[in-house]
């Protein structure tokens, strides 16, 4: 039962019969309110084909040793421990699938390792997704980072797409890496600091009225991305990107041996391209920061499978060049 007590604190005195029957505007308002309240809450029927349901889960939950280097190779030799490890962090409402093309592209290489992290609360049911905060999302990254350090790995690199990038920026800003071996390189693909949907900052007001939003996923995407986005999670998304924006406004200092490499689509309907400008202005020292604007209309342009948009040859080139760039930087320095 929802508590609507706050409405009474506005001190509105309404003659309800007059409002309902003698005033068309009043009737319209009541109708709108009725529709709004009726649309609140959670989706009534979540089918089993969706990630949101109770049947499909992210495969890393069942077999984490296939995704996390800390579990697949917990006792590395000194030579193995010095190889680069990429901790791959996906974005809001996504799953480990978002970086699966990088893992497939890497093949059975022995030059580096990949750890594909499932953000907290993700890859599970709608209810579990709804009940987790952005700090819960972030802890999954920290767990793997610390597990790798404990195992003796020394060349750790963070790779974040979309909200994964924002979570990594927050970790730097909050001083998480102080007193630890810092990541050697940080790579971000379409990090979100400014949303393209400029109504998102109003989610605190609009969210309780709408309950959730529905995204138009392709049949392929439905198993790997949430179709229904609880407004509580959108509020968490707004909280983390607002915090990162304000942190960037004050200035974020990279650890002294860490480089930051940002790849940002020039036309992105989820993470506004101006996010890259805020990172450029807000992260120092500037000689450790590299920004590359990518001619693309895709959000997280490195993921091409199951796109609703047609994938062009240019998109494939962008993906290939970015994967090569990431690996070359990590292997050369």
């Amino acid at each position: 039962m929802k508590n609507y007590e706050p409405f009474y604190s506005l001190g509105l005195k309404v003659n309800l019969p007059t409002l309902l029957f003698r005033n068309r505007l009043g009737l319209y308002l009541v109708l709108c309110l009725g529709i709004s309240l009726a649309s609140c809450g959670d989706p009534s029927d979540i089918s089993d084909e969706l990630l949101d349901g109770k049947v499909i889960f992210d495969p890393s939950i069942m077999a984490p040793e296939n995704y996390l280097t800390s579990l697949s190779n917990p006792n590395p030799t000194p030579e193995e421990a010095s190889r680069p490890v990429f901790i791959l962090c996906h974005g809001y409402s996504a799953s480990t699938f978002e970086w699966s093309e990088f893992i497939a592209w890497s093949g059975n290489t022995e030059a580096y390792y990949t750890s594909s992290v499932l953000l907290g609360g993700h890859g599970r049911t709608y209810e579990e997704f709804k009940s987790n905060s952005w700090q819960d999302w972030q802890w999954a990254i920290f767990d793997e980072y610390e597990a790798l350090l404990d195992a003796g790995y020394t060349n750790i690199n963070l790779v974040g797409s979309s909200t994964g990038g924002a979570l990594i920026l927050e970790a730097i800003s909050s001083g998480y890496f102080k007193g630890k071996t810092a990541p050697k390189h940080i790579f971000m693909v379409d990090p979100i600091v400014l949303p393209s949907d400029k109504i998102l900052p109003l989610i605190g007001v609009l969210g309780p009225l709408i309950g959730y939003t529905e995204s138009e996923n392709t049949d392929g995407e439905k198993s790997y991305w949430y179709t229904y986005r609880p407004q509580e999670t959108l509020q968490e998304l707004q909280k983390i990107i607002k915090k990162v924006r304000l942190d960037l406004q004050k200035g974020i200092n990279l650890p002294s041996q860490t480089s930051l490499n940002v790849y940002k689509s020039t036309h992105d309907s989820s993470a506004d391209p101006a996010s890259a400008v805020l990172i450029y202005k807000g992260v120092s020292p500037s000689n450790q920061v590299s920004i590359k604007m990518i001619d693309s209309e895709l959000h997280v342009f490195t993921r091409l499978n199951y796109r609703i948009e047609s994938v062009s040859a240019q998109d494939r080139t962008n993906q290939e060049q970015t994967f090569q760039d990431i690996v070359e930087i990590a292997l050369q320095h």
Partner: protein
Amino acid sequence: MKTILKCLVTLLGMILFVLTTESFAQQTHIDLGLRVQKSFGLYYENGFVAQFSADSIAQQRLYLGIGYVSSRLGSAIGSNAIKQDNYQVWLSYYFKKDHKLQPFVSLGSGFFHADYESDDFEELDQSSLLLSTSAGLEYTTPIRLKVNLAIGYNLISGNGQEGPGTLYPVFGQLNFYYPLK
């Protein structure tokens, strides 16, 4: 959509021209003031404003305003916020002119420019036409200072695909006007 916007801007320009010409031929009133503007979800942009009205036009209910607000005078002071400037013109119509608390509506236009400070971002839109609507309340204090609170909506804003990413749609304004004449 763009054609409609162009027509609206042209119409606004013609009204401004007529109003300005008429105002200086009649008994005019000039208010000078300060504006505090906050985009919902982004920056404080503050600056200077002026309003003009004439006795003979709409019984002094219609005001022509011009203003300059910038994050340089707001969020960008001592921070890494993007420096962005808004050159604004607007027409306001006041209701209940004899009341202390006067509702008003406005239609505004102008020019927006954000400075991204690097050639790396030259492909991104950094400038835009402004077109906005707003509504609010104005209170005249006993010392003649007018305090004016409004909420507005930018009909043109950034959406990731086009338009400056730091031009947000919903904004609030707090204005302080002092009548000079």
